[in-house]
């Protein structure tokens, strides 16, 4: 699923490493999510949303089926 995480992260001037540290995952995980290689679990999606100070639904682009 496409997402806006990279844009939101850059708006908040956070590096991938910093966001990864805040969410207690590796930098590779954040990179994989941003490049749509991997869809995060609900728990991780909530952690990312919380650290980017947005709601979970605003993280993702739902293009329909």
């Amino acid at each position: 699923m496409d997402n806006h995480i990279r844009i939101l992260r850059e708006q908040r001037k956070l590096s991938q490493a910093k966001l990864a540290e805040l969410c207690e995952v590796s930098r590779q995980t954040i990179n994989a999510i941003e490049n749509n290689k991997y869809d995060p679990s609900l728990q991780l999606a909530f952690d990312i949303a919380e650290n980017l100070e947005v709601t979970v639904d605003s993280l993702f682009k739902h293009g329909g089926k």
Partner: protein
Amino acid sequence: MMKDKVFQWGLGIASLVLIANVVYRLVFGLVIGEFEIMTTAPVLIWFLFTVTWRSPYKKEGISRKEELGQKIESKSEQGSYTILMGIGLIGLLMDWMITGSTNTVLIIILLIGVLLPEILNYIIVQTYEIEPNAIGRMAKEIQYRYSKISRKKKRGAGFILGFLIVMFRPRPEGEARSFYDVLVYLFGEPSESGTDILPLLFSVAVIALVSYLTYKLIKEYDES
């Protein structure tokens, strides 16, 4: 960082030496016994673990415990299963082509390998049913009870089981080279009178080394 690299290189070289020993034995038709397998496999596993996952020896990288790590592990397990089945099938065909007979044990293992995922699918689907049948209820109960056992206990049980298998395994006469054979090779046949101190000290040192390496590996896994 330097220490991490030295450790990784050390493990890498140890793995290469042990693999070279197995290849040498294969090429020259020498016996590959449990001693070779029991020394090569753990070192190789540890080396691969260290270069793959984040650990005290590799600060940057994906941790085995985070969700991406678990997804990677799950993918690897699926891939390993497919490769293993393929190797089994090739082995069966080669056996048939070379000897003209088929290996019954291998056929049974392959058959179980094909059936097992379907059986597990059936059981797991039953656990998700709104009204599970007896098998589903039993599987749910087992899942629940298993989840209540701590990881420490599971690991301890695994070690005890492994230890018991190693200690009480069937030993066909003259088939497998064991640690005892290594002691005889290094220190000669045990004398009938008195205690040989050198083999004893060597055994204690090997047990201490294996215990220390196991402890480090567990600690590394916990900290990764």
